[in-house]
């Protein structure tokens, strides 16, 4: 903690100097999207100012430069999550598109009516709806592993759901609504013992902890660039090469083909097979810059710093009478979801906004989680590496004041 370069990090994020309603911005909506360091902003400006053209097709200098940078970003992603090959890194628009890709390509080609897909009770809609769509299309069955009141997966119940019909486990690495971190190593071990592949939704986990897909041995890992301090419109699907090789394309178009006649198309190899059309070139190069940035800070340092922030915020929150923390898993990332007695989360959100504090109020795209706790919505403060104890003090003071005002 003492060595964490918080002042330097804050100085690298220009938006943190903004005033909101004449107050210094306290940005605590990081689980929705993170702010961008100057290095990422500069990267995008640099690409469009000096190195932009379409990739993969041009013989001209700019196209070659842009292609090198774009493929360089792929190598950065590979190294960041320790994939075995850049062929296993598919660029998509975000975690949502990555899951839809797996559902429609892997799911539709490998699963059949009666096969079961296991998810958990704490999933984001992005890891529910694509599977429901697949179930409607081909007759697969969605099974939901339950959690306890703390927001922890009931591992034994999860394990019981795995049977001869289970053909895929798709589960979140870290819950966006609760902060719970799932025991993904154990989940993968028991699933693999039954030859069931596992997809991890890493949208929340990726900015908060080091992820090594080979050590995890997960079959698919998905995340969004914008939650990793990178540009929006970028996302990554990691898949084991053998699985990706055997999957049909998700979308057809340019860039994903080897040859096309009106009779027949030969698809390109990995990763281009899954990258039809012009991607978000400058943004993905910017994602590479974001990965460079967090790598210098160090994912383990970020994890340790954020764990202290969460512990401090939790300790402060528990002292506020009438505040209920939603999600108190033993293993938890930097998310403080809460309700206040007799005060609706939307009122909390508007009131805190007037103090310059950005939190989220709503169902966090996890309506089944809200139903589980019997609340229409929660207020959620979510932390990033640039947040401070002082900001948490501002948040807590704001909460205490609004409780007084509501009386």
């Amino acid at each position, binding site marked *: 903690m003492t060595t964490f370069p918080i002042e330097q990090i804050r100085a690298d994020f220009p938006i943190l100097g903004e005033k909101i309603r004449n107050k210094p911005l306290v940005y605590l909506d990081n689980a929705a999207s993170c702010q961008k360091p100057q290095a990422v902003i500069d990267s995008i400006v640099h690409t469009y100012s000096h190195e932009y053209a379409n990739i993969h097709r041009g013989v001209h200098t700019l196209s070659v430069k842009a292609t090198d940078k774009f493929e360089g970003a792929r190598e950065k992603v590979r190294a960041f999550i320790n994939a075995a090959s850049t062929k296993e890194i598919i660029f998509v628009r975000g975690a949502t598109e990555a899951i839809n890709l797996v559902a429609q390509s892997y799911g539709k080609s490998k699963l059949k009516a009666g096969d079961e897909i296991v998810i958990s009770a704490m999933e984001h809609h992005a890891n529910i709806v694509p599977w429901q769509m697949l179930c409607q299309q081909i007759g697969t069955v969605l099974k939901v592993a339950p959690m306890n009141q703390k927001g922890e997966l009931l591992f034994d119940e999860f394990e019981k759901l795995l049977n001869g019909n289970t053909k895929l486990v798709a589960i979140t690495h870290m819950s966006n609504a609760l902060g719970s971190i799932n025991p993904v190593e154990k989940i993968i071990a028991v699933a693999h013992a039954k030859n069931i592949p596992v997809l991890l939704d890493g949208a929340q986990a990726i900015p908060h902890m080091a992820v090594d897909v080979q050590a995890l041995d997960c079959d698919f890992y998905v995340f969004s660039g914008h939650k990793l301090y990178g540009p929006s419109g970028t996302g990554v699907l990691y898949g084991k090469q053998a699985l990706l090789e055997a999957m049909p394309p998700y979308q057809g178009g340019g860039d994903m083909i080897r040859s096309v006649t009106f009779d027949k198309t030969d698809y390109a190899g990995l990763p281009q097979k899954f990258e039809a059309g012009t991607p978000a070139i400058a943004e993905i190069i910017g994602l590479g810059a974001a990965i460079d940035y967090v790598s210098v800070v160090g994912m383990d340092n970020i994890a340790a710093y954020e764990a202290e922030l969460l512990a401090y915020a939790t300790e402060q929150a528990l002292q506020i009478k009438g505040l209920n923390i939603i999600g108190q898993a033993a293993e938890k990332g930097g998310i403080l979801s809460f309700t206040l007695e007799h005060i*609706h989360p*939307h009122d909390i959100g*508007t*009131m805190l906004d007037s*103090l310059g504090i950005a939190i989220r109020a709503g169902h966090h795209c996890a309506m089944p989680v*809200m139903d589980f706790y019997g609340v*229409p919505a929660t207020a959620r403060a979510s932390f990033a590496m640039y947040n401070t104890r002082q900001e948490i003090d501002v948040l807590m003071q704001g909460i205490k*004041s609004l409780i007084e005002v*509501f009386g």
Partner: protein
Amino acid sequence: MFEDLRDLYQEVIFDHNRNPRNFRVMENANRRVDGFNPLCGDKLTLFLKIDDHVISDASFQGSGCAISTASVSLMTEIVKGKTEAEADTLFKQFHEMTTGKTEDINLEAIGKLAVLAGVREYPARVKCATLAWHTLDAALKNQQEAVSTEE
């Protein structure tokens, strides 16, 4: 501390949020419509008793934020005793006031409801205030299906 919000959260709103008026199920209602804001989870059920084109009673149940609760509470007070046509006019005036297309709103005509004019400055909160009124509109038109702010 919340000086900037004084226009949005007036004391009348806190009062109606703490003690909502006409907060009850109406057994003999002849109109009953559910209203739902899927963005924030606000839910209400509006009950009306309409006799010979006059709203003889209005009540509601449900849960929501202070703005939506105060809005529906105030609405049930004000429409009681009004004709369907008068209530429809109020709906249109309220809609005009909260969505702020024009500056010259007749605040006198709209009476107590003027305390909700502040939502105009908070686009994210306008639907909190209008949910009740869209539900009323549906009830006046004798629609059965639930009202959503997102359709």
